[in-house]
């Protein structure tokens, strides 16, 4: 059974002038960890807000836990947990007060579902008397997750939960998600960190309100159509400029300590070109694309189609 379905969902703002979500259809299976990946303004948050019954779609239908998001919104609100992109707890209430508040609103108690949040809550328990507004980013995120979980939801919606959070906390956060998934909770999550995308069962790449591809991370990578090279030299900035100005270059961008390059030319020719241009300590090798490469390729194609830089 599907935990979430969207059928031709469309949403516009400003009296129809801004198309935020454009005829989107996809479904998330029960118990699946599904990632929505897309740039700022792609429509991810709008999708979240429609599925959490906070916003009505213009067209199309959608269900959460088998219930219709328009007709059955009251039932849905009882079975979903939602962590919005913007920190939305009560800043003037303490950690414990926030949690008690959310438990009470959902007609339950902290004790009743303590098992579910225990792993996360013990990490913030030492600060339970501190006001939520005074917590660090990582702590706020953990509290928000606890509050979203306290009524034992069937489906969890997490809108960019790790933005601004350091790598150690991010790893911990994803380990928590894995444990929640093991308990049968369906999770829809959006992120701008591509390394997190690979931890999802399936990912949907979304751009300008449209879902462009849905596949497992492995299949997303397999679909990359060109050879990809990793290139490194002593002067990386010059290397970048030299490769970008080469007429057969399709795309060249920084990627950690290397540049990633796709080019309509065989490797040997390019290597010679770079050696002649005086690049020392040259490393040139074929590499396996990552989800990030797939995403960049998609965005570049799209931007060029729109006549680069919005003009």
């Amino acid at each position, binding site marked *: 059974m599907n935990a979430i379905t969207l059928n031709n969902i469309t949403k516009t703002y400003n009296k129809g002038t801004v198309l935020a979500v454009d005829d989107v259809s996809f479904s998330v299976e029960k118990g699946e960890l599904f990632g929505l990946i*897309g*740039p*700022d*303004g792609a429509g991810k948050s709008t999708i979240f807000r429609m599925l959490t019954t906070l916003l009505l779609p213009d067209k199309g239908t959608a269900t959460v836990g088998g219930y219709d998001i328009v007709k059955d919104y009251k039932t849905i609100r009882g079975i979903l947990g939602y962590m919005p992109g913007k920190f939305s707890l009560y800043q003037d209430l303490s950690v414990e007060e926030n949690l008690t508040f959310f438990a009470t609103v959902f007609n339950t108690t902290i004790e009743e579902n303590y098992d579910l949040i225990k792993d996360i809550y013990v990490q913030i328990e*030492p*600060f339970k008397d*501190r006001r939520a507004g005074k*917590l*660090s*980013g*990582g*702590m706020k995120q953990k509290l928000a997750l606890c509050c979203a979980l306290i009524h034992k939801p069937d489906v969890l919606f997490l809108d*960019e939960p790790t*933005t*601004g*959070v*350091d*790598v*150690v*906390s*991010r*790893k911990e956060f994803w380990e928590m998600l894995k444990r929640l998934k093991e308990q049968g909770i369906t999770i829809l999550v959006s992120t*701008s*960190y*591509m390394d997190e995308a690979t931890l999802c069962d399936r990912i949907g790449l979304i751009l300008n309100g449209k879902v462009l591809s849905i596949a497992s991370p492995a299949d997303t990578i397999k679909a990359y159509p060109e050879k990809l090279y990793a290139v490194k030299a002593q002067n*990386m*900035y010059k290397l*970048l400029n030299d490769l970008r100005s080469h007429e057969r270059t399709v795309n060249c*961008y*920084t*990627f*950690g*300590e290397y540049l990633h390059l796709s080019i309509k030319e065989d490797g040997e020719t390019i290597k010679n070109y770079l050696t002649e241009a005086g690049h020392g300590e040259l490393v040139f090798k074929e590499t396996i694309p990552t989800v*990030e490469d797939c*995403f*960049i390729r998609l*965005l*570049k194609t799209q*931007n060029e189609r729109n006549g*680069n*830089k*919005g*003009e």
Partner: protein
Amino acid sequence: MNETVIKANKLTKRFGDFVAVDEITFDVHKGEIFGFLGANGAGKTTAMRMLCGLSIPTSGEATVAGYDVFSQPEEIKKNIGYMSQKFSLYEDLTVLENIEFYGGIYGLTNKEIKTKSEELTDKLGLHKEAKKLVRSLPLGWKQKLSFLVAIVHQPKIVFLDEPTGGVDPYMRREFWDLIYDAADRGITIFVTTHYLDEAEYCNRVTIMVDGKIEALDSPSGLREKFNVQSIDEVFYKLARQAKRSAD
């Protein structure tokens, strides 16, 4: 590359019993891209605030652009640029009004502001959006504009506090193109980030843990020293040892 533009010696900041920044010592050279990493709560923001002349250190010494952080904070403010993820531009002003406003603050003449406005909108391809409110721009565009506005007065150093948080991978790279370009023109870049691939784009990287600098080297130097494949692993090794909770 050897002219020093930031010099910190045992720089310390206490809040009561809490030592937020604990005797940090380092130099930053002209035109360098200097990455300043650390977990949430490691003391990065406090350190940066001292270097920007916004917070007087408890002890130690530091000069920024040749000015002393204790006695010349106002001079420092005139000679640096600053941009953060949380606050950068005025959302209720248009693109052009923001450039005008910051240009004015930094003492540019009207003529200079006009030239700069054209240069910036040109560089970003924002002609159509020049008279739109900044609020209506996508995050990536805002951040790029915000960076160029932060260096509108050609400062010696620009401090960037998580400039790319929440920005997608494509836009993050366009943002870094602007950073490279500025560094190439001799502006020193002091940058914090949670995207560790971006650490690789820096000339040198420091990693702060519990208020102290635990590592300072080039990205390749750090990888070698810790015998790992990526800065991600270096960071993880160090930050995991942190005793102080992220708050």
